[in-house]
């Protein structure tokens, strides 16, 4: 207690070097690291082995488990370094008050990302297995870390995005934990054709794709443009990971079907592109 009365700085809270159990700290760090590796590799392995419907329940467990590992390790190490018996609200306020300004400027982005990372665990704007678009980058979330999220784009590029984007960016999530998400195939047709017939045909194209989740609605919407008619064929694949294969299949067979019907593609002026997402 006498020692505690002299606490004025963070250094005063630290134990003497000879009092610190360094082997224990090393053991905790190594064990925490190995556990994290096990989680990172074990969960995808497990989700591949079990039926596909379990995949999007297993993968999101990763950040939660890693957070638990971090908290446990933190809880084991801190008492070894700091004389916790001397911690009181007055001491903490006095010490942090001095350190906060210096630390805040140096690590504000890191701390912001870490705090945002904790928020994502509870709020779940994205989780492993989700297809998201953040700040213009679209891909499948492969890992949700403490500071950043990794997404794998369709071009097989890994993009690491700090969690702090959560504060001021829109996050578009295509499937939000579900296995399937909507896929849209666009068709641009010259204006002289029977629209009802084309609409039925495109619906049949979707209903006859083996990728299609038959229990989800297939929708064909269209809008008239100055240069022709824009059709959007909206359907769900059984597995969201087949998004691009599915869209390709719809497009290939849709083009063939339209060609057999004698419907020609439109010639779209370059300046007209960009508004196709309005439907």
């Amino acid at each position, binding site marked *: 207690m006498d020692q505690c009365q002299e606490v004025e700085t963070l250094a005063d809270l630290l134990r003497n070097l000879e009092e610190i159990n360094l082997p224990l700290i090393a053991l905790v760090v190594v064990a925490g690291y190995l556990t994290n590796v096990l989680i990172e590799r074990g969960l995808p392995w497990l989700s591949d*082995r079990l039926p596909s419907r379990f995949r999007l329940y297993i993968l999101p467990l990763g950040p939660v488990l890693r957070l638990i590992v971090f908290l446990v390790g933190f809880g084991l190490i801190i008492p070894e370094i700091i004389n916790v018996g001397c911690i009181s609200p007055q001491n903490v306020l006095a010490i942090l008050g001095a350190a906060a300004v210096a630390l805040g400027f140096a690590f504000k982005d890191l701390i912001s990302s870490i705090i945002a990372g904790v928020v994502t665990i509870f709020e779940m704007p994205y989780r492993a297995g989700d297809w998201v678009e953040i700040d213009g980058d679209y891909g499948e979330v492969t890992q949700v870390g403490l500071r950043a999220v990794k997404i794998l784009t369709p071009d097989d590029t890994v993009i690491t995005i700090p969690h702090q984007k959560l504060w001021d960016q829109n996050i578009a999530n295509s499937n939000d934990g579900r296995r399937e998400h909507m896929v849209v195939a666009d068709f641009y047709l010259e204006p002289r054709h029977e629209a009802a017939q084309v609409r039925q045909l495109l619906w*049949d194209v979707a*209903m006859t794709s083996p990728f299609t989740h038959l*229990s989800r609605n297939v929708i064909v919407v269209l809008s008239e443009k100055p240069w022709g008619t824009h059709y959007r064929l909206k359907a769900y694949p*059984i597995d969201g990971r087949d998004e691009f294969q599915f869209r390709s299949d719809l497009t290939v067979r849709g083009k063939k079907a339209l060609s057999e019907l004698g419907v020609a593609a439109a010639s779209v002026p370059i300046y007209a592109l960009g508004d196709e997402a309005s439907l």
Partner: protein
Amino acid sequence: MASTNKDVSVWQFIALSDFNRPTETVSREAVTNLRSYLRALGRKVDSQAQPISKTQEELQTLPDRLFERAVRTPEWGEMGVRGLEDALDLWLEAETDKAGIQVIVHGPFDGVAQSVELLAHRRDWHVVPIPSTEKLFGGGVAWQQDILPPDGGRWVIPRLERSYLRHYSGLNQVRRLVERIWQSGSAGLITCESWAWAYLNEAIQISSFFPTPITLSPFGVPRLSLWLERMAQRTFGHRFVFRSAASGKEIFLPTAVAIECLQKDEDSKEASLENNQRSSYLRSLAVASRGNPGIAWAIWRASLYLAADEDLDAVRAGIDQAHAETEAQESGDQETDEDSEPVVKEKARAAARLDKGLTVWIRQWDDLELPRLPANAHTVEAFILHALLIHGGLPHRLLSDLLPLQPGALLSGMRRLQAVGIVHESIESLWRVTPAAYPAVRSFLSREGYLLDPL
């Protein structure tokens, strides 16, 4: 009142909405699911084929004539005709302009389509001509002109699943066909396999045209017991006795008990009273086959077991005994043993020693080597299997037209499935899922999230 096996018709039809497949106890189902997950975790990711059941090779030690007598090949068409006529009595008695269209939805391999074809032949009904699948792929609806009898007589489409293709032109054809026959106001009978029915329900909402289909009543324990026992012919004046190779318990229920359960429509409750005297094999068979007699029969054949020469000697001794017409002593209550030992031939033989007839051993359910999907089966295999099921079989050429797979990938997938006994090419040159593999295939498609049939 029916008192013998032959008096009872096990082929009955019910409304499709009333179909309830045989189910296992919750604990047993949990164990089965857990085993499949553990098997999935422990799998090796390779493409090596799993061995096809050796049972048939072992059975070849049994003289062919005895094997065919023990598990006679059913006459699929003939068996179901009587039950079909009973189910359709109101439709048959109605006048042709008032009878309407009756739809029968049935599982694959269950013989219902053959029964309908036989009934149509006997009653001289018009069978609607459906083009071959290759011709259907060409598109066009010209073939649908004048397909119904001009005199307004009764007509039949025995296999609606062969009248369409999962293709944008094929869908248009079946849509037009259904609309045409629905609007005709004539008296017709349509049979459709359950997988095709499920698909057409999503694609063209076929159940809104024909809202009250009927289906074959599921084959639970009592029905299976009566039917399979009936399939075993008496030989040399003596019947076959089917016993579990694990416990020695008899497989079939006493005839009177089975008939009573059937007439009371009680599948599990009453039958389970016999479980302490009878093997639980039939319960497992009913659950695995989902009440489908064709699948049950295929698995039953795979379950018959003659292990080694000593078994054959016992069979030969039984034949000699039958020839000499030696009578065995009557036995009171047969001893049963609740224990299950790894090898219980001695105990089973003890139970069978006083059998009047030839004893055929049935493998323990957990030891059955039914076809299983390759360990790394995924999208390619799922596409192939689902396409084969919703069409009731397809020629290879059409598979490559209907599926978005590279020819090499398709061929490789077919070979993998064929090697493990999942698919085979029928005598009609159609690739089909094998009956014994059906439970594994359905389970696989369910896990992968594909549309399933209602049975």
